[in-house]
C-alpha cells in the first residue's frame, strides 16, 4: 500500500490556510506525523479519512483517488479520532460489532468471532459486556484502536492516541498498534508526543503551518541535531541567564546548581559537553533553529488565546 499526497491544499472559509500544496508519499508501516498544534495534522487526517474535502490537490491510495474512489478508499480505512467517545447505550462488544458490520463482515457468528478475537487482542474480552462509556481511560483507548483495526484495514489513521494515558498504557497502546495491525498496512500516527513516534515509526513527516518541513526517518532528523545538544551544569544565577539565550530541554536540580540540556548551535561562556540527541531534541532544534518559528508560534498562540477570550 502506498499513499501519495499530491499538492494538497485546504483553505477554510474565512481564508485560513490549513494545508498548503502538501506533497508526501507514505509507504507501508508506521508513519509519524509530527507538528505543533495548528500545523494541519488533523486537517490532513480528516481529508485522508474522507471526513472532509480538500480545496485542491488529491491523495492517492495506490490507484484510488480520494476525489473519485471514496467507497474503495473507505473500505481500506480504520480511524481513531483524537476526541473519541462512545454511544452511551452500547456495550463494549456491541461497539466493535457495529464497526465490524459496517466494515463488511457479514454473518452474526463470523462477526462475533472477529469481535471476540479483537477484544482478546486488546485485552478487553473480560469487559465485553460492560457499557463502553463506563470503561477506564486506557480501556477506552484500546477499544478505540480495536474498532479502528477491526476489518483489517490497510490504512490506519490514529490522531493523538496516547494523550492523557499513563506510560504503561501508552506503551501497551503502541504495542497493540504494531502487533495487531496488518503487516502491510500503513499506520499513520499523528501526535505531538515525540516519544510515540521515536519508538514506533520508521518514517515521519514534520508539518508546520500547513507545509511539509521535514520528511525522512527519525534517525535522519536526529542526525540534523547532532552536535547541537549540550549538557551544562549551572548555578541558579546562571540558569536565569542561560534561559534567556537557549531553549532548555531538561532541567535536573543537583547539589549547588542544576544540570540542564539545551539546544544550540554552540554554547559559549559555560562549561558544557555535547551529548547524543534524541528525536525530541531534534524536533526542538528543528523548530527553533531551522524553522526559526518558535517565537512566532508563541506570538500566534497568545493572539489566538486573546481572541478566544
Amino acid at each position: 500500500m502506498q499513499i501519495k499526497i499530491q499538492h494538497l491544499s485546504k483553505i477554510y472559509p474565512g481564508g485560513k490556510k490549513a494545508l498548503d500544496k502538501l506533497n508526501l508519499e507514505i509507504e507501508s508501516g508506521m508513519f509519524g506525523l509530527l507538528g505543533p498544534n495548528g500545523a494541519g495534522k488533523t486537517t490532513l487526517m480528516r481529508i485522508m479519512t474522507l471526513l472532509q474535502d480538500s480545496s485542491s490537490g488529491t491523495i492517492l491510495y495506490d490507484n484510488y483517488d480520494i476525489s473519485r474512489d471514496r467507497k474503495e478508499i473507505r473500505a481500506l480505512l480504520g480511524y481513531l479520532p483524537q476526541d473519541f467517545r462512545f454511544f452511551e447505550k452500547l456495550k463494549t462488544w456491541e461497539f466493535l460489532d457495529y464497526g465490524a458490520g459496517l466494515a463488511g463482515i457479514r454473518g452474526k457468528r463470523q462477526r462475533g468471532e472477529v469481535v471476540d478475537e479483537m477484544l482478546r487482542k486488546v485485552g478487553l474480552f473480560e469487559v465485553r459486556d460492560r457499557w463502553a462509556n463506563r470503561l477506564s481511560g486506557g480501556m477506552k483507548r484500546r477499544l478505540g484502536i480495536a474498532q479502528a483495526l477491526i476489518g483489517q484495514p490497510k490504512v490506519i489513521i490514529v490522531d493523538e492516541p496516547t494523550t492523557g494515558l499513563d506510560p504503561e498504557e501508552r506503551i501497551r497502546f503502541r504495542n497493540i498498534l504494531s502487533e495487531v495491525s496488518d503487516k502491510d498496512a500503513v499506520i499513520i500516527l499523528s501526535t505531538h508526543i515525540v516519544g510515540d513516534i521515536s519508538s514506533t515509526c520508521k518514517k515521519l513527516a514534520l508539518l508546520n503551518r500547513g507545509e511539509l518541513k521535514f520528511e525522512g526517518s527519525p534517525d535522519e532528523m536526529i542526525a540534523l541535531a547532532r552536535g547541537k545538544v549540550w549538557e551544562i551544569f549551572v548555578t541558579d544565577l546562571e540558569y536565569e541567564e542561560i534561559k534567556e539565550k537557549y531553549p532548555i530541554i531538561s532541567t535536573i536540580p543537583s547539589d549547588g546548581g542544576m544540570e540542564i540540556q539545551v539546544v544550540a548551535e554552540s554554547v559559549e561562556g559555560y562549561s558544557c559537553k555535547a551529548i547524543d540527541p534524541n528525536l525530541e531534541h531534534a524536533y526542538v532544534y528543528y523548530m527553533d533553529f531551522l524553522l526559526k518559528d518558535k517565537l512566532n508560534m508563541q506570538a500566534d498562540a497568545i493572539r489566538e488565546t486573546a481572541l478566544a477570550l
Partner: protein
Amino acid sequence: MTLHNISSVSRYEVKLLRRSWLFRIFAMLSLVVITVLHLGSQANMDSYQWNMVALSSSIPFVNIYIFNIAQSIIAIFLAGDFMKRDKKLDTAEVIYVRPMSNTDYIAGKTWGVIRVFVTLNLVALVIAAFINIFASESAFNPWAYFFYLLTLSIPSLVFVLGVSFLIMNLVKNQAITLILLLGYVIATLVYLGEEAWGAFDFFAVTLPNLFSDVTGHPDLSHYLVQRVSFFLVGTGLLTFTVVLMKRLPQHPRRQVVLNVLGSLLLVVGVAGSVLYVADYRHKDAARAGYVEKYRKYIAPDMGTLTDARVKLQQEGKRIVAQARLTVENQGSVSLQSLLLYLNPSLDVIRLSGVNGEIPFRRDGQVIIVEQTLHPREQVELQVDYSGEVSEEICYLDVSDEEFYNTKTGNSVLRYGKRYAFVGDDFTLLTPESIWYPVVTPPVNPVSLYNVRKDFTRFALQVVNPRQAVVISQGSPRQVGDTLFFDNDQPLPSMSLVMGDYERKAMMLDSLEIALYCFKGHDYFSEDFTHIADTLPSVLRWARDDYEIRKNRDYPFKRLLLVETPISFATYVRNWKGASDYVQPEIVLLPELGATLPNGSFKLAKRRVQEWERRGNRSIEEIDIEMRVVREFIQNALLSENTFTGEGNLFVPNLLNDAPGWSSKLNKYDISPLFFNHVTFIRSDDFPVMDVLMNVMLKQETTTGGGGGWMRQFSGMNDAQRAAEYLMNKSFEQAIMDETMLPEVFYELLKLKATYLKNYILTYRVSQDFAVFMKEFILKRQFSTVSFADLNNEFMESFNINLMDLIPEWYTVNRTPLFIIRGVNSEETTIDDYTRYIISFHVYNPTPVEGILSVRVEGGRGFGGGGFGGFGAFGMSMSMDQPPAQFLIPANSYKKIRVLSDNRPNNLSVGTNIAQNLPSEVGVRLPRMRQITTDTTTGIFNGDSTFFMYDPKEITVDNEDKGFRLIESNQKKHTLQSLLHITTEDRYKNMNFWMPPSRWTATVGNNFHGDYIKSGYYKRAGSGQNMAEWLANISLPGFYDIYVYNSMIEFRGGGGFGGGRNEDEMHQYYKITHADGEDEVSVQTNEDRQTWVPVGSFYFSEGDAKITLVDKGFNPRQLIFADAVRWVYKNNQK
C-alpha cells in the same frame, strides 16, 4: 445502497432507540394511554359507547389513531436527538469513515426507527386485539389491523421522520426544530387537518376511514392517494436529508442523482396531493354546475308526475332502466317544453311517447323534452336510460363545508359520506340521487323552500338474477327473477335497496313491521330471548301512544326498518322536514345501529339492571327487555331530538364551556311518515308553509310550549337562540339565512308555528283546532293541498282569515317583551267545589304584540325546591292541561286571571316569541291564599301602577347599569381564549361539575329580572372577585336591604352548589351606608329564589353601594350575583 449496511445501521439504531429513556417513557405512556382509552371507551365496562365498538374496524382504528399521534410526537423528539448525537460526538466519525454510502446510513437510521415504532405499534395492536377478542362487543377483524398499520401509521411516521430530519439539518438547532415540528403537529390536529379536504392531514384523522362490513372503505381511492402522497413526500424529504448529510458522498455525482430522486419523489407526492385536491375541486365544480343548471331551468310552471313505472336491472356498478311516466300539466299555463330531471351520469338512450321517439336535449341533470303540454293535458313518456349513478348531484343545497365534513358529532370515528350505492354487494338509491326521471327535482338550490312534492303512483320492477333481497315501497310480488312493487297510494318518492339481508317481520294488526339486517348482523336477538311473545304488544303500545301524542294515524301498510352501510349519509334539511333516512314506508338505519342512541342492547340492559339494583328493586328479565325495547324505540325513532355529549373521549370538554349535552335533530325521527310524506301544503307566496304546518302539527299538544327538560335548565338553548334571532330579523329573513344551524332554525320554525297556533287559539275558537287540522289532512292524504284551500276551509270553520295574520307574522322583525308582576293565587268556591283563581299583571312596553301561554301547575315545586337532578322539573309539569293563550297588545298593561281546578303550586308563563329569557317564566305560588268571590277569568285591562318607578323601592339587577363586576385577574386566559374559540352566546349553561372561576353570566328561573332572569355565578374564591350594585338614593333615611338569593339546589352528586340541603353555604355582602361599612352574610342554602332581608341601614342622598365578595362558606360552594333591593323604611336617624 447495500442492504447489509442498512441492516447494520438499523440494527444498532434499534438498540440505541430501545435503550433511550426518552423513548421508553414515551412508549410506556403511549401504551398506557391507549390501553386506558380502549378500556374506557371500547371494553365491556360500564362506560363504553356503542358507536365505538359496533363496527369491526373501530378498535384497530382507535388504536392506530392514538398511536399515530403519539408516535409522531415521540419521533420528533427522537429525530432531533439523533441528529444532535450525530453532530456532537466524534463517535459519528468512526462510523462515517466506514465504507457505506450516505444513503445507506440515513436509510439504516430510518429503517431502525421504523422497526422500533412498528414493533411498538404491534404491541399496541396486540393489546387492542386482546381487548377486542376478550373484552368487547366488537367483532374481530384482523385485516383492519393490518390495513391501518400499513396505511395510517407507516406513511405518517415516514413523513414525520422526513420532515424532522430535514428541518433538523436545515435549522441546526434542536430546540427550534422541536418547536417548529410540534407546532406543525398541533396545527395539523387543530386547524390544518380539516383544510383542503384533509390534504394536509398527515395523520389522516380527518379522512373517512371506518369500514362497512358490506361496502368496505367509504372512499378508498382518495384515502390511498393521500396516504401514498405523504409516504412519497416523506421519502423525498429523507432523500434530501441524505443530500444534506455532513459527510462526503461515496460518489460525488451521487448527490445529483439523490437530488433528482428526492425531487422526483417530492413532485410525485405533491402531485398526488394536488390530484387529490383537484378531484374534490372537480366535484365542487360539478356540483356548482348542477346548481347552475337548476338555476337555468327551474320554472314556476312545470308538469306533475302522476304515474311512474320503472323497470330496472343492475349490471355491476351500472343500472339499466326503463321508466314509463305520465306527466300532467295541472297548472293554468301551457308548457312549451317538458323538463325532466335524471342523475347526470345516467345516459338517456331513448325517449319516446305513444307516437314514437320524441326529440330531447340533455343538459346535465336536465332533460328538455320537446313536447308541448296544455293545461289539464297528460302525456305518456318512456325513458330508457343506463349508466352509473353519480353522487355529486345529491344535496346541492348543502354547503360545501358541510358536504365534506365527515365528523359525526365529536367522535374520532369518521364513517364517510355516501349518498348512493350501486354494486354487486349492495345497492341503495334514494330520490336524492334522481335515479328515475322526475318532473320535480328533489332540491331547488335557487329557492330552497320552493320545492314541490308530486304525489305519484309508483310501480317498480326489478330484474334480480342474483337473488338479492330487494326492498322498495309497495307490496312485492315475485315472478321468475323479477320483483314487482305496486303501490296502493301515490307517494312523494320511491327508493330502492338491494342487499344480502335477513328479514324479521311481524304483523301488528294490519301493519307489517319488518326489520332487514345484513346477514351476520343480528347482534340483538340474543338480548331479547324473553319477549318474543310480548314484543307485538310492546310495539302496539308504542305505536298507539305515538299516534295519540301526534294526533295522527300511521298512514302506510308497512314499516320497513332497513340496515344500511355506515357510510350512507344524509342531512337535516329544514326545508324538507325529513331526513333521507326516513323514506315513505322505509326507515334506513345505520349499520349495526352504530350511531343510534341506545344502540347497544347489552349495555342498555345492564344499565336497567344497575338502576334497579341501586334502588333495591328486583326486576324480571322480561321487564328489562321490554323497557330496553321501549326506550330504544322512543329514543331512536320517536324523538325529534337526540342528545349527544359534548366533547369526546379524547378531548373531554377541553374546548367547551359547559360539560353538558347538546341537542341535535334526530335524523331517524319517523314523524315524517305521519306528516311530511303524507301531504303537501302548497303556497306559492309562503313556500315554507308546508314545512311549518307539519312542524305545527307534529308538536304534541300535551307539552307546554314545546319544551323538554333541557329548555328550562339554564343558559341559552336553541329555542332561546331562535327567539334572540327574531328580535331583529323576520321569519322571511331566517328562511334565506344559510348560516343558521338546523337545530336553531328548527326551533325557530317551532316558535313561529306555535305562535301561529297560539295566535289562532287566542280567538277562543269554538272548534278544536287540532281536530280540524287532522280531519282536513286526512281527507287529502297523499295529495297536494293548496294553502288557499286550507284557509278557505279554516275561514268556514273558525271565521278567521289566516291571511290577515300571516303576512305580518311572516315579516315582523321585532319581538315584544313581557314584564310580569303581582302574581297572586286565591281560593274561591264554584258549584260547592273549591277552585283557585290565579292572577297576574303583565306589561308589554314594546310596539309589537305578543302571546302569553299560561298554565297553572300542581304537583312538585318549581325551580328552587324541585331541581332534583335532571328531569324533575319536566315531570313536575302537569301535562294534562293545555295552556291558555292570551294576546298582549303592543304598549299595554293587562291583568290575566285563570282558573285552576286543582291546588296550584306554580304558574308557568310561556312568552312564545319574546325578548324574555328564559322564554318560559316560572313563578312559585304562595301557599297561603285569600278567599275571593270574584270568579271572572280572562284578560282585562291592567293597572300601570304595578310597573311605575317607586323611589322608595330601588332594585338593582345584574342587567342594570348600576351593576358591575370586579375581577381580580382580568388578564387570565382560558384555553378557549388562547385558541380564540369564541362562543356567541351571551349566557352560558350552568356548569355544576366544573364551575367557572370567573364571573359567568347565565339565565334561569332561579334568577331575578324584569324580563331577563339572569345572573352571574362562579365558584367560591378568595374574596378577590366582587360584584357591586350602585343605587342613587334620592330620599335619605333608613332602608331595609334585601338581596336576591338565586342559589339552586343540584343533586347531581359530586358537583358544586352544595349537593345537599344540609351543606351550609353563605354569601358575604358589604353594605356601604352613611355610617360606614358593614359586612352581612346570607345563608344561601335556605330561602332560595326569594328576597332575603339583611338588615336596615341609613343612607344619605347620593350613591349607595352593596358589594358581594366571592368568598364562600365552604369551598364547594357557588356564588351568585343577581339583584339587591333598597326599601325605604323611615327617615329617623
